[in-house]
């Protein structure tokens, strides 16, 4: 019983981290239809900046991620401007845009290698390595803190998108760009802002990633499949759907690892994705 309960709890903690990684992609891919394959690489870049601030100045990893987020926002805005000017404006966003983001991914990886080297990087904090025991449930702070931060960030993004004018404009641009224009909002500026917001989330997700385990420049590739699967499973454009999908993936992986064998975990998790899409092609909470 305690193994089962711990597996569920571990899965929820892990799922929240997955949601932090995927939320930016839920905006860019889910809502703006931009296939930003470089998204997990931005997360790794966030990890490296967190590592620098932690190892050189002793800054807490979460604080480092939050402080760096505005810089990532600006970077995201600039990247979108290039993408729009080069591809979206001329209608070439599908294949050429995808190739563009592949290029961005490789450039970031190579820059990280040249600046930071290839050795594994880890961060230190007083709470990493400590545990809270609630009865027979063990809660490692190394995963609890990312759970709390990820939940807060996801909730903040969700409320921003659903309750503010700009947030609603971001949701609207995905649904009907022309109608949004008629409302007096510039769709390009809205998408630019949304892309910046998505990249800003990677700074925080990166700080959580480097708390959980060591990072090296190519680690982002491990998360490409997972991040896109979560966005698709949750339903394109749905933040609550993305969260549910992330938690579901985390719990399934954890339960399978505990009881059937860890090597089955990806197969079962992606099996759940395929089954869901077979039954409900738009995803759990997607627009039908």
């Amino acid at each position, binding site marked *: 019983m305690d*193994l089962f309960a*711990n*597996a569920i709890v*571990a*899965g929820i*903690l*892990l799922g929240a*981290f997955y949601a932090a990684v995927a939320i930016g992609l839920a905006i860019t891919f889910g809502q703006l239809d931009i296939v930003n394959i470089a998204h997990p690489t931005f997360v790794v870049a966030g990890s490296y900046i967190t590592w620098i601030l932690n190892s050189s100045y002793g800054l807490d990893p979460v604080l480092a991620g939050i402080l760096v987020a505005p810089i990532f926002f600006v970077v995201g805005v600039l990247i979108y401007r290039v993408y729009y000017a080069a591809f979206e404006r001329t209608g070439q966003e599908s294949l050429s845009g995808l190739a563009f983001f592949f290029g961005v991914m490789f450039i970031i*990886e*190579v820059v990280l*290698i040249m600046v*930071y*080297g*290839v*050795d*594994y*990087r*880890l961060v*230190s904090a007083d709470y990493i*390595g400590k*545990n809270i025991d609630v009865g027979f449930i*063990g809660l*490692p702070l*190394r*995963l609890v803190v990312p759970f709390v931060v990820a939940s807060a960030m996801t909730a903040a993004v969700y409320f921003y998108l659903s309750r503010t004018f700009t947030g609603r404009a971001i949701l609207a641009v995905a649904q009907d760009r022309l109608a949004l224009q008629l409302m007096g909002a510039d769709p390009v500026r809205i998408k630019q802002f949304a892309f910046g917001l998505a990249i800003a989330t990677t700074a925080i997700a990166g700080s959580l990633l480097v708390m*959980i*385990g*060591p990072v*090296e*420049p*190519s*680690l982002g590739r*491990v998360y490409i499949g*997972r991040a896109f699967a979560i966005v698709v499973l949750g339903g394109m454009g749905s933040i609550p759907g993305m969260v549910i999908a992330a938690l579901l993936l985390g719990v399934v*992986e*954890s*339960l399978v*690892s*505990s*009881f059937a*064998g*860890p*090597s089955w*975990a*990806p197969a079962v998790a992606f099996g759940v994705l395929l089954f869901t899409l077979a039954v409900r092609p738009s995803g759990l909470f997607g627009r039908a």
Partner: protein
Amino acid sequence: MTNRRSFARATVIAGALAFAAASGSLVSFAAQAAEPLKIGFSMALTGGLAGAGKAALIAMELWREDVNKKGGLLGRPVEFVYYDDATQPAKVPGIYTKLLNVDKVDLVVSSYGTNEIAPAMPIVMRKKLVFPSLFGLAVNDQFNYDRYFQIMPAGPEPKTDWSKGFFQLASEQKPKPTTVAIVSADSEFTLNAAAGARKNAKAGGYIIVYDKTYPMSTTDYSPIVRAIEASKAEVIFVASYPPQSVGMVKAAHEVGLKAKMFGGAMVGLQFAAIQKNLGPLLNNIVNYDFWVPEPTLNFPGVKEFLARYQKAAKGKGVDPLGHYLPPYAYAYLQVLEQSVRATNGLDQGKLAAHMHRATFKTVVGDVKFAKNGEWAKSRTLQVQFRDVKPNNMAQFEGPGKRIVLYPKAWKSGDIVYPYKK
């Protein structure tokens, strides 16, 4: 008059032609003497194993510098021709094909790691080349290639020799533990290590109560460690790569794993950055290693080499101490160098025969190969972390933190047992 002029003209022309022919020969001889001797290889310069790969390359460049200071090999300066395999086995065959068919290298050596060595074997075997290899576990078990030479001191039966010491140490304890958990990543090296552990566990009369693999992309290891804890295994053998080793050690600490022995084949616990970060979490883990700064392993030249490596590695974002792979990366080229000098040529058959016959003096001590190209005698150390302090890399520079428990010939201390009460 005309005849004298014609004769003089002919003499001059003949002389000029003779001079040109002689000059051409001289030029060609000089060019050949100066023509670099090219050694080709792939190396993980990006990707998961790049930390070790780049460190190996620094060591290899130090060797090249040393050899060229002595006038090169066979009177020719040594040059490297290498490409980044990005820790992707699929890239390796193409790289070695290019090295041999396009770059026309004179000699080849391997990349780092089992997963990157195995794909090169068919290419190298087809060309009947000598293939000094860098840290591949049991690669030659399937190929049985008589020109393969492995610098990693796993031993003549690498799969089982690798973990023999680990299980022998467990068997020496009173009371002897009876149950074993074996967990490994889904990858060539780790599966080979786990296969050897399984054999040793059965030979030692252990009951294997947990025996599973996990995908390389696993993020959280606490479900795995909890499942192992639930199996009540007394001895836990883990075969893992660096990020997974960190995940396992942290999860073991968080779960409060109460094993009698924990460790085995965890790559990464030999790396300075990881040792510094894990700190006291490493204490009492018994894991493999190949060189540690214990007094029993002070081979001629190794300390001087490490001092040079550490200076060269500064600011390059690689392992700053270089205890794990660099000495062996230098040594496998020393083996090649000594063979080329001894046979005075590049005849692959003669090189291979010499490598099988000779004992080589290297920075990692004496190296002698068995018939299958592995070390004639295993020197896979079982090392226990002891009294490691938090956040301190300098403590690993000297002896006392990684105690050699096995083999007895290199032992520097006794085991602390159990791992956790």
